[in-house]
């Protein structure tokens, strides 16, 4: 029986958020024969959410990491666990998201073709403006809100780049998956409610975006793009910026990267 492991990484989330996401998991319609299990890794300062997680999702699901290791590093740990336990796919799911009841079955159906590496759900009510092919679902990169990862994609890439603490780690993973010859798809019928547009852009969040953008530019060989965002980062912080030196991606693989559309990393439909 195929197994889908759902990984949720917590960091100081509210009980209401955890309740909403758990309720949506329980309301999910599953593809016939598909088995689903959850894993919750908590990067919070304490284990406050452990009892509620056990109540909502079952005992043995929760693990406290003891430190905030970031989205990518924590999902990598959960993915290693999942694939070594024989999971056929792993879903990175944001704790502040709500799955539409058909989301899991639509994601699973879109992941069926053998060459599929990643499949993302369509964010709702504000759909991401990056394009996808309405017939095949092919998309330049997959968003991390509800991101299904096939074992082949994890094997080929090792998962997220852990140097990217927050933002653009999904873009980087998608490009590496495509460079490895696998496909990145959107499942148009998979809706995930994730409303963040009303949240204020704090300076901390803005700096994280700029850091990640500059890092991505350096890693994928676009020095003009990297310099542009490093300069902006310096202007925003008003002090010299320590730039991390990533391992550069091989020249032939750089063809999949798109730096022509700023930090959207793809043409925008709107």
């Amino acid at each position, binding site marked *: 029986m195929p197994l889908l492991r759902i990984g949720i990484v917590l960091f100081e989330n509210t009980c209401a958020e955890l309740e909403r996401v758990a309720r949506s998991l329980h309301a999910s319609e599953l593809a016939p024969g598909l088995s689903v299990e959850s894993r919750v890794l908590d990067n919070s300062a304490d284990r406050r959410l452990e009892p509620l997680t056990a109540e909502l999702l079952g005992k043995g699901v929760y693990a406290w990491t003891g430190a905030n290791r970031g989205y990518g590093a924590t999902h990598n740990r959960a993915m290693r666990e999942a694939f070594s336990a024989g999971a056929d796919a792993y879903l990175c799911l944001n704790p502040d998201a*709500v799955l539409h009841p058909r989301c899991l079955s639509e994601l699973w159906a879109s992941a069926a073709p053998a060459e599929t590496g990643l499949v993302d759900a369509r964010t709702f009510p504000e759909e991401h403006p990056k394009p996808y092919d309405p017939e095949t679902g092919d998309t330049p990169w997959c968003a991390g809100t509800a991101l299904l990862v096939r074992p082949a994609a994890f094997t080929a890439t090792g998962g997220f780049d852990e140097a990217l603490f927050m933002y653009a780690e999904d873009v980087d993973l998608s490009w590496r998956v495509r460079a490895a010859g696998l496909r990145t798809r959107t499942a148009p019928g998979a809706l995930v409610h994730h409303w963040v547009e009303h949240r204020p852009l704090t300076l901390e969040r803005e700096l994280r975006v700029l850091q990640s953008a500059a890092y991505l530019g350096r890693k994928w060989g676009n020095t003009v793009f990297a310099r542009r965002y490093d300069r*902006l980062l310096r202007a925003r912080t008003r002090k010299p910026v320590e730039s991390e030196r990533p391992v550069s991606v091989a020249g032939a693989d750089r063809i999949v990267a798109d730096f022509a559309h700023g*930090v959207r990393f793809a043409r925008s*439909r709107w």
Partner: protein
Amino acid sequence: MSAAPRIHVHLVAWTDEPWDLEESLFSLVTQHEVVPSVSVAVPAANEGFARAACERLTRLGGAAELQVGTPPGWSAEAQAVAVWVAGTVATPDHLARALALCGTASAIAPARRVLRRPVPGRPPYALRKTRRFTSASPSLEELGRDPAFLGRCLVATARAPGWLPAHPEDHRRWAAEAWSSGPVARVAGPPSVDIPDLRTERGVRSLDDVRDALAELRYQGPRWIERRAPLTFDRLRGWYNRMRDRAR
């Protein structure tokens, strides 16, 4: 703690597109701080699908009540009424923000038009979303160029016509009755409603169309600069904010 206010939403499907219904219902069950009572009017052939959609979205556990069919009216507890065409989608705070205005006027939310392409067996593909110009007190003429315009409006039950509209011509008649019963005002802030672009004529034919184009340009222009020259954009934004603060 007082109970969340109740709003009646009449959701009308004009097409056989099941995803339009699904997305509007998903948007309604995820509204914050209000309890939507939703009546769903669909062609008879789609009633089975509509019932299944209502049942599956109720499982998400929100406070919304969903039922298929057109009731004779709304419950006495409802404080306001909205009429959505299937395919309309709103931000989770839309109904609560519009309701806050409903004490003094019928509320009109800023909106975007969504031009879609049907895809057999899959959800329609959104080709573009464009911002609409919304004046401070929008006229029926300004709004009515979009057949699905009622999705932007919320009318207090005391001022709402006592019937629920079905066809496009009913929507205009319903709106005309609502407009004649009191003032109309725009909800502040960015667009909170996406309405399906169901127009048959999309050319620039009036001053309102030009205003729409300018509203879109006003939004997209800075985004265009931000993507191509982020440092220049950051400096321009800084100057703009300083000038605005000085003017206050």
